[in-house]
């Protein structure tokens, strides 16, 4: 059996569907060929006509028009991710040039933040949501840190109040206590 006619299988042992085959073929196509097909997809040609050409040129037989529609929806998502990737690459280069002292984490944080706003500005809420997930995770982390700080602050304050009761009669200890209280208040702001 030649390589091209070899059955394509998955780990489950089931043969790949026409849709999976088409996606795999698509990702291997040269950009110029992809552009040709994009033009065809946006032309006035019928779905069945397009399916016939796909079968002939790409050797993938889509069983129905709805499969082709699903493929086109998937392709739209992939194209959006491709455009996002281009912008992220460009933004990474630009931010690294503008801030040569930034760490990789700082650069990526800024790229993700910009990507979130860009995707929302273009109305792509799905991609925006993906970028937002990181934003939310960071906010959750900050919230946890604030909560921890607050609990520490409360414990220290109650401890200091108790200590204050015991050293009222000692002016030196009282002065040292007040200075310490001030430093702690500053540190746990």
């Amino acid at each position, binding site marked *: 059996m030649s390589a091209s006619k070899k059955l394509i299988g*998955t*780990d489950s042992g089931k043969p790949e569907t026409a849709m*999976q085959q088409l*996606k*795999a073929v698509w*990702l291997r196509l040269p950009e110029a060929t992809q552009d040709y097909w994009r033009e065809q997809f946006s032309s006035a040609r019928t779905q069945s006509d397009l399916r016939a050409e796909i079968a002939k040129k790409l050797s993938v037989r889509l069983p129905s028009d709805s499969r082709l529609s699903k493929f086109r929806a*998937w392709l739209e*998502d*992939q194209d959006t*991710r*491709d455009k*996002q*990737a*281009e912008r*992220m*690459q460009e933004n*990474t280069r630009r931010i690294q040039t503008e801030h040569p002292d930034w*760490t*990789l*984490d700082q650069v*990526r*944080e800024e*790229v*993700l933040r910009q*990507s*979130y706003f860009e995707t929302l500005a273009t109305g792509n809420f799905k*991609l925006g949501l*993906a*970028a937002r*997930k*990181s*934003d*939310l*995770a*960071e*906010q*959750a*982390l900050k919230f946890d840190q604030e909560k921890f700080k607050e609990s520490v602050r409360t414990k220290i304050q109650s401890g200091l109040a108790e200590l204050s009761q015991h050293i009222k009669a000692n002016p030196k200890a009282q002065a040292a206590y007040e200075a310490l209280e001030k430093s702690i208040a500053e540190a746990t702001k």
Partner: protein
Amino acid sequence: MTARETKIAKRILDALHELDGGQAHALTILGEIGGLGLCSSAEFDAVLAELDRKKFVIGVKSKFKGVMWNISDAGEAARLEM
């Protein structure tokens, strides 16, 4: 891999699985799995490199998009076992 690295690896594979055969940039994946709130860039890059070494993910270099990643059949199988 440590338990933490396995957790990050599982999230990466889950994110790529959701693309349904599609490809994504590393930063899109990083954003998808929780961003820098979940792990540092160094941790993420190391886990992604390990997945690549094990052939669980496939990286395709592109002039303008950088490297675009997708999940392999072996990656799909590994994901189910993690």
